[in-house]
């Protein structure tokens, strides 16, 4: 358990090592990166073994960092952070397996990749708002280089848009946090201390601070109408980067909302709750409908991410224990499933067929050319639709039930999103993999045999599929971590609208 901070240091060290190894050869860099990711994943699993769920954050390290400003290097974990750290470990390993074919500037690629991962681990472990913010920004900048250097369609535009949105969001967060810090007497950035200080703020002050911090984080979580960076960014990114973007980076935003914005300013949350829920529902439906009419395979997945993240935001906005625990489970679930979907589209299909246009894919008998990819995608699609047995089902169900308790109308409206998700998923499965089922439609001789699916890809896909199935069949694995965490005084005060 106490070794968890090592995940951060291992990742940053691994980034340096991969950079150096890249001078030798791409293969060395790959191996170094994989070993790094596996080591930190191993540390995570070991910590998960002896993790005792309980209310409140369990401190891992708490050290004065910048005493002049009362900033402490305070890392801690509870069930929510554990869930997301395990997700990060899975996503990192899978991401590296799916970028096994990167040859050009591989050392730099994995250096940026592991820097991002280190930042993500750091965010999920921070119990000090300053520490969290620093790691949050460390996770932003590498995305630009990952996308702009190794991306595909319109990569420089997509990379710039994504990074500027993220950075603008974090600027809002910084303004809000500094405001709260200064108004609270400038003693500490500890989340608990800030929350204690914020109790004495006027409702108007809390409302303003909450708006800045929540909106800033929610930009990265894909809150409508600030979601437009997500589809373009996902499409432009190389496979591993889109897996990370959808898999963990969007969760950073949601996590920031849950860990910082909501407990700190419960009165602000109470004020903005309907607006956030409304935007989340619009996001679910709008992004789902947009996904229904895309021509580009990857755009479908990109918009589906926005739609699924809408559920997370809705669960957070509902602000009761059940909805929030569903939202956290949905973060995990979507992280795994979106990663898998992007892996199939970006790596298995696009890099073999060199097209993502659904019209072109329709003409190829992909289910026969790459049965493994087709089967994986069908399973991932089912998981994404929220089929029982996969992790998406308990997550979305819990969110909807929890939301119902706060406002039945929200749950009803959001539930419409479920069939929409089924519709766009089924459409894309049908068109891309089973477009031409008749053998006659395409003569076998006209189709170039595609390179077979590699071992690395299969391992990665099985890892992600296993995770979604395991949690789908036994969601209590994670609920037993998440629910006690939500019993902490900070969250309980938040659920009660600021009255302790």
């Amino acid at each position, binding site marked *: 358990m106490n070794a968890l901070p090592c995940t951060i240091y291992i990742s940053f060290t691994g980034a340096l090592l991969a950079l150096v190894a890249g001078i030798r050869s791409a293969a060395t860099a790959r191996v170094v990166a994989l070993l790094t990711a596996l080591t930190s994943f191993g540390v995570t699993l070991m910590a998960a073994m002896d993790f005792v769920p309980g209310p409140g954050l369990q401190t891992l390290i708490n050290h004065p960092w910048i005493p*002049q400003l009362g900033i402490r290097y305070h890392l801690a974990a509870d069930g929510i952070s554990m869930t997301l750290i395990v997700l990060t470990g899975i996503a990192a390993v899978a991401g590296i397996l799916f970028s096994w074919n990167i040859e050009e500037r591989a050392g730099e690629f994995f250096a940026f990749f592991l820097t991002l991962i280190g930042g993500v681990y750091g965010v999920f472990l921070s119990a000090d708002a300053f520490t969290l913010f620093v790691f949050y920004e460390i996770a932003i900048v590498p995305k630009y280089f990952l996308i702009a250097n190794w991306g595909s369609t319109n990569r420089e535009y997509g990379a710039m848009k994504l990074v500027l949105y993220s950075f603008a969001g974090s600027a809002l967060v*910084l303004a809000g946090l500094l405001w709260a810090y200064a108004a609270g007497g400038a003693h500490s950035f500890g989340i608990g201390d800030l929350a204690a200080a914020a109790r004495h703020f006027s409702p108007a002050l809390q409302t303003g601070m909450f708006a800045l911090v929540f909106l800033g984080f929610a930009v990265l979580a894909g809150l409508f109408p600030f979601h437009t960076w997500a589809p373009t960014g996902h499409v432009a990114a190389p496979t591993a980067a889109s897996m990370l973007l959808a898999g963990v980076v969007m969760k950073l935003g949601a996590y920031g909302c849950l860990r910082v914005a909501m407990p700190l300013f419960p009165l602000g949350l109470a004020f903005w709750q309907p607006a956030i829920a409304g935007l989340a529902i619009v996001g679910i439906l709008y992004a789902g409908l947009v996904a229904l009419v895309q021509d580009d395979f990857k755009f479908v997945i990109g918009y589906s991410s926005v739609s699924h993240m809408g559920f997370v935001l809705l669960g957070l906005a509902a602000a009761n224990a059940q909805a929030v625990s569903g939202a956290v489970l949905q973060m995990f679930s979507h992280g795994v499933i979106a990663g898998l979907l992007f892996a199939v589209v970006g790596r298995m299909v696009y890099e073999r067929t060199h097209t993502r246009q659904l019209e072109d894919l329709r003409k190829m008998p992909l289910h026969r050319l790459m049965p493994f990819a087709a089967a994986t995608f069908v399973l991932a699609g089912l998981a994404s639709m929220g089929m029982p047995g996969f992790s998406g089902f308990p997550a979305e169900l819990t969110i909807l039930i929890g939301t119902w308790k706060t406002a039945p109308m929200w749950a009803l409206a959001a539930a419409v999103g479920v069939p929409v998700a089924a519709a766009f998923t089924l459409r894309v499965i049908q068109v891309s993999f089973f477009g031409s089922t008749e053998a006659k439609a395409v003569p076998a001789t006209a189709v170039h045999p595609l390179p077979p699916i590699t071992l690395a890809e299969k391992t990665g896909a099985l890892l992600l599929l296993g995770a979604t199935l395991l949690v789908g069949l036994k969601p209590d694995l994670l609920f037993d971590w998440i629910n006690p965490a939500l019993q902490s005084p900070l969250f309980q005060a938040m659920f009660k609208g600021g009255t302790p």
Partner: protein
Amino acid sequence: MSPDYLELLHALMPEAALVIGALVVLGFDLVVAKRDTLEERMNSSVTIGALSIVAALWHTVRAGAFGPAFGGVLNFDHLAVAARGGVLVLALLTLLLSAGTAHARHGAEYVAVILFATVGFTLMAAAQQLLLAFLALELASLSLYVLAGFDKSRPASAEAGLKYFLFGGMAAAFLLFGFSLIYGLTGSIELPQIAAQLAHQGMSPLLVVALVMVLVAFGFKASAAPFHLWAPDVYEGAPVSSAALIASASKLAGFTLFTRLLWPGFGIVAGIAPTAHVWAGWVPVVLLLSGSSLFIGNLGALAQTNVRRLLAYSAIAHAGALLLGVVVAGRAGPGPLFYYAATYGLATVGAFGVIGVVAKAGACQKITDLAGLHRRSPLLAGCLMIFILSLAGVPPLAGFFGKFAVFAAALQLGGLASPVGWLVFLAIAFSAVALYYYLVILKQALVTAPAADASRIAVPAPAAITLAAAALMLLLFGIFPSLLLGMF
């Protein structure tokens, strides 16, 4: 006042080391190195110059803060020691970078003038009397005019020198006029006496005129809008290491000098004391300068295609944030301001150093001249990434924490819903805009493929070590800001 010259000698050992170093550089070049090649003469001059700066640095650190000296003309408080250390380090980096990049003709003169400018900077950092402040400022400025126009083979350099001189001369005239009015009002040129007199007199129309004149000179030195017009031309035209010195050490010394004038000297008429309800004083003017610099710097930078002009506009934008640091220095102390100015200087020297090395291997005017730097020299590309990201304020680099400390202190003056708070919000919002133009540079350096005729760049060893050291310092001070903040 009974002058104690022994005490003065002791206090000014660093300056003595620099002046002796400059004279040795000139003498050595004239007598010993006459027959060497230009390159060798430049190298020996840089070596001697660097040694004298190291000696000065050693004296500064060893002496530490010992308070007023020479009857209060100089004040060696913590700020003075930190700022002297800062300008010496920045000057040292500039000098080492100039070894491989500067125009090699008249190398000894170039190094000597850099050392004289540094003497001006270190005196500026400690001056506590108007006359000495003005003399130190002029010593530094005159040296910088010469440095800006040093490259006689390029008309752009002459233009830079002339423009800098004309603007600077005008600013100096304003400053002197302002000083004379203050002397007339208070009967003293010593800051403590001036402060005492002003506490007695309060605001008067003549004082307003005097303050405005001082602030004009400050605006010029800080390259704050609307006194920024010289900056893009000088940054573009001056030899690279001169521009680096103007952008880094000169900024740090200037901000130290004017912060000392404004707070200990005229702090009583600042106009932002928590009890004062009337906004009359110099703080509102500085806030105005800060806001306009943020606007003009950030928006102007968006339109630049020349990398040096872009750095100039970025300097104007940073001046806006630094001016906020001056405003907060009254309450939070000079720590945040010094941290910001010093680390900004480091990043700027580094960025100019990279430009200098690239320019030696070809042209480095347009941003596109940096294309494919990751292929041409991975070291330069990596260092440039750190410098630019630090300028952009991305953690864990020092540039982020500088902004953070200044903004945190500024918000304590009145929350986000006060004029200072609006300015902070503006500055934070502009940091997202700024990231765009910084990423435009990094896109060329790290993403775009090199031009067809671009070759690998051989980085001279001193430059490579200096750049790596600057990058490491930015990382170190960014992760452990207390190293610098703890000096106060």
